């Protein structure tokens, strides 16, 4: 696999980055998905936290998530003979903006925007934090005599909020936001849209990008938004650190290129892309 290692990509001679005055990203996530670790049980979450406590002193317990690629149909099953019901645990720092997510099928690092830490955190800043987290996790597995994870894919996601009243006013404005949305010009039936949601999957080089767009209400401030979730995934050539981090770098490149290719130049300028 021959992937660039720079954090800034180029496409058609144009420098790509997530440098914006007002980036739409409210959260990023990166890490690895793997086969369930044989022997892992609920007690390991607590024991693992002991290794992270100095860095991530707080915990949260959101609902567990599906770990397999989101291609419908999906079937999720659990039987009483399994040693663990699906459980997801977050270890967060005091600001609750940097955290790790642990579930038996994945290990991720998230940055999320908060009132106390509103500035976007770039990949180059987060990657060394994640490398350290991953190293702690592998050391813990070894101490517990649990097997090293068999990696299924490296993945990186950007979670963006397009705010109604700021980035767009009505669904008639979608052609100004998304390159793939032409709109219904002078259409006798489809005018004055009230709702739109769509899903796009595109192979990119050795990986894949999935974009999910749908409306919602952000409960922290009551704003009506369009959620635009970009997820890039790459299957690494092996489960060793060199392979999986190279694949993660590939995810970052794919995500940058996809972000630039998905939103219109008008939106990129509106968010204040820095040259």
């Amino acid at each position, binding site marked *: 696999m021959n992937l660039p290692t720079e954090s800034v990509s180029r496409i058609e001679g144009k420098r790509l980055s997530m440098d914006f005055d007002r980036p739409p990203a409210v*959260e990023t996530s990166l890490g690895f998905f793997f086969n369930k670790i044989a022997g892992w049980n609920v007690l390991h979450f607590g024991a693992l936290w002991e290794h992270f406590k100095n860095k991530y002193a707080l915990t949260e317990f959101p609902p567990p998530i599906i770990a397999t690629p989101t291609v419908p149909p999906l079937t999720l099953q659990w039987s009483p003979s399994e040693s663990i019901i699906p459980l997801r645990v977050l270890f967060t720092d005091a600001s609750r903006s940097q955290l790790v997510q642990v579930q038996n099928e994945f290990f991720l690092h998230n940055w999320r925007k908060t009132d106390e830490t509103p500035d976007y955190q770039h990949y180059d800043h987060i990657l060394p934090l994640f490398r350290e987290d991953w190293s702690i996790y592998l050391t813990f597995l070894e101490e517990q005599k649990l097997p090293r994870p068999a990696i299924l894919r490296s993945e990186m996601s950007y979670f963006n909020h397009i705010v109604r009243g700021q980035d767009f006013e009505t669904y008639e404005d979608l052609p100004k936001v998304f390159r793939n949305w032409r709109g219904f010009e002078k259409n006798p039936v489809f005018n004055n849209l009230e709702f739109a949601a769509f899903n796009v999957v595109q192979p990119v080089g050795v990986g894949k990008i999935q974009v999910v767009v*749908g409306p919602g209400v952000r*409960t922290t401030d*009551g704003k009506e938004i369009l959620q635009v979730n970009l997820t890039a995934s790459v299957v690494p050539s092996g489960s060793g650190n060199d392979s999986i981090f190279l694949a993660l770098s590939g995810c970052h490149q794919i995500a940058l290129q996809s972000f630039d290719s998905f939103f219109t130049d008008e939106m990129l300028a509106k968010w204040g892309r820095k040259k």
Partner: protein
Amino acid sequence: MSALLQAQWVPVQQREKLRYAGNSTVSVERQPLFRLNSELTPVVQYEGDGWLFSALAELHALKRAGMNIPGLGDFRIADETMDRVRRLLTTEAVLNLDKPQFVPFSGGGLSLVWNSNNQELTFSVYPGEEQATYMTGAVNAAEQHDGVVAVTNNTDLSAIVTRFLTTAG
């Protein structure tokens, strides 16, 4: 569940939600406790056929129609009122109810009203006020149960809604 990613759920855990259907019928809605992605920022998603979508569309219509009527009042709904009403609408306690009736009042505020079996519940949201006022009791009765509540305090909101549903029968 999102229409975009149709998954066949075999739920491990189920949460039963009592749903007020507006005609004294209470149904039980089971929701699987799983998510489809690793996003943590709290967002309530909706689809085009639910009451939340209809309520949000009605809010936009009311905002557009608001007018300042000399001698009568300023019925333009303030932006901060809209944000606060959306926060209230997307709490678990209120999502358990049916779609409310919206009543703008002078000064940029908005009331949300539910009626059942001669019992009424009203939340009133004011611009510039973090808290909403509430009132519940028999319609036109002198005795009402009222107070103030933070629009995101689901615990207190649940208590108010439960009281209303219990008295409404």
